[in-house]
C-alpha cells in the first residue's frame, strides 16, 4: 500500500495556506508534520483527509500491485482532529458503538479498545463525566474500533499526561507494524523507526 501526495496546495478564501507539498508513504511508515503555529499543519492534514478542497495537486492511495483504491481517499482514513467528535450526553459505550457501526469495518470490540487506553471502567459513564485527558483517550479508542489503513491525527496528545502519551505512541507503533500509514501533526517524536518528517512553512 502506498500513499502518494503530489504538489498539494490549499487556499482558504483567496489566501494560500500551504503550497507545493509532496511526499510518499508506504505501508508501515509514519509522517510527522511539524511547523510553527499557523503554518498550515492542520490545513494540510484536513486536505489529505478530504475535508478541505485542494487547489492543486493530487492524492493517490495505491495497493500492492500499484492499483488505485476505489472511491475517495477519505473513506480509508481515520481522522482525529482537535475536537473529539463525541456526544457529552451519551455514555462512552454508546459513543464508540455509534462510530463503530457508522464507520463500519469493525476491528477491536469496544471493551478491548477501551482496555488499550486504560479506560475500561468508564464504559457506562456519560462522556461528559470524564476529564479532558480521558475524553481524548476515548477518541483515540475510536481509531481502534474500526479498521482503517490510514490514520491522520492532529495534535493527538493534546491534554494527555506522560503515561498516556507513552500509551499512544505504543498504539501508533503497533498500527505501523501492522502495515498502517500514519500522518501526525505533533511536536513530540513518536519514536517510530520508519518515521519521516515534513516541515511546513520553514
Amino acid at each position, binding site marked *: 500500500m502506498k500513499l502518494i501526495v503530489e504538489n498539494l496546495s490549499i487556499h482558504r478564501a483567496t489566501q494560500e495556506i500551504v503550497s507545493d507539498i509532496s511526499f510518499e508513504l508506504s505501508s508501515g511508515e509514519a509522517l510527522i508534520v511539524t511547523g510553527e503555529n499557523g503554518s498550515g499543519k492542520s490545513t494540510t492534514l484536513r486536505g489529505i483527509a478530504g475535508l478541505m478542497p485542494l487547489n492543486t495537486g493530487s492524492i493517490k492511495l495505491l495497493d500492492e500491485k500499484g492499483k488505485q483504491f476505489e472511491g475517495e481517499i477519505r473513506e480509508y482514513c481515520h481522522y482525529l482532529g482537535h475536537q473529539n467528535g463525541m456526544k457529552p*450526553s451519551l455514555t462512552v459505550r454508546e459513543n464508540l458503538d455509534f462510530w463503530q457501526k457508522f464507520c463500519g469495518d469493525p476491528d477491536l470490540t469496544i471493551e478491548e479498545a477501551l482496555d*488499550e487506553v486504560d479506560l*475500561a*471502567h468508564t464504559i457506562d*459513564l456519560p462522556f461528559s463525566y470524564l476529564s479532558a485527558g*480521558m475524553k481524548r483517550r476515548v477518541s483515540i479508542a475510536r481509531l481502534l474500533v474500526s479498521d482503517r489503513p490510514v490514520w491522520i491525527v492532529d495534535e493527538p496528545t493534546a491534554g494527555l499526561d506522560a503515561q498516556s502519551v507513552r500509551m499512544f505512541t505504543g498504539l501508533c507503533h503497533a498500527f505501523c507494524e501492522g502495515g498502517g500509514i500514519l500522518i501526525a501533526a505533533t511536536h513530540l517524536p513518536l519514536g517510530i523507526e520508519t518515521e519521516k518528517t515534513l516541515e511546513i512553512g520553514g
Partner: protein
Amino acid sequence: MSTETIKPSIWAFANPTRFNAFANKAIPVFAVVTFILLTIGLWMSFNAPEDYQQGYTVLIMFIHVPAAWLSMMTYSVMCVSAIGTIVWRHPLADVSLRSAAPLGAMFTVLALATGSLWGKPMWGTWWEWDARMTSVLVLLIIYLGLIALAKAFDEPSEAALPLAVMTLTGAPLLPIIKWSVDWWNTLHQPASVSRFDRPAMAPEFLYPLLVMALAYMAIFFTLHMMSMRNEILARRIRTMKMQAARERKSGGGS
C-alpha cells in the same frame, strides 16, 4: 458524621443526609395518613347528596377543587424554596423546588382534566377560554417550562439559581388565578366555580371537600418527600460516578 448533638431546629433537616434519614422515617407515616384521609374523603364524597342543579356531576368537584388548590399551593412551596435558594443558596431548597415542579404540573393537569370533564355536561364544551381556565393553563405551561429548564442543564446544581429566579418571576400569576373570576367576569360566568370558594356553602358539600383537600395535601407531602429523597440519592450517585471515572487512574494498567 460526627456525634455532636445539635439543637433540634429547622436547620437540622437542611442537611441532605439528615433530611434523608428523616424522610425514611416520615414517609411511611405520611403514606398511612394519606391513605386514611383519602379513604374517608372519598367515602364522604360519594355519600354527598346530589346537587339540585348539577346532579351527579357535583362529585367531580371533590376531585377537581382540591387539585386546583394544590396546583397553587405547590407553586407557593416552590416560591418559598426559590427564596431559600436565592437568599441562602441552600442545596436542599433547590432539591425541594425541583421535586415539587412535576407534582405541581400533575395537580394542574388533574384540575384541568376534571374541569374539562365537568364542563362538557354543564357548559356543553370541553374547553372554554375563560379567565380561570386560561390562567390555570398558563400555570401549567409555566410548570412544564420550569421542568424543561431544570432538565436542560447537564449539572443539576447549575440549574438551581435560574430555576429559582424563573419561579419567582412567575409568582404574580398566583393572585391572578385566585382573583381571575372576580376581575374578569368575561364569558362563562363562573359562579359554579367561585361558589365553592365562599364559606357560604352547604356543610354536606363543604366537609367532604375539606377532607379531600387535606388528603390531597398529604399526598403532596408524601410524594414531595419521596421525590426529594430520590433527587438527593440521584445526585449522590452522579457524584460517585464522576469520582469513579477519575479514581482508577493510579491503580490502572492494561
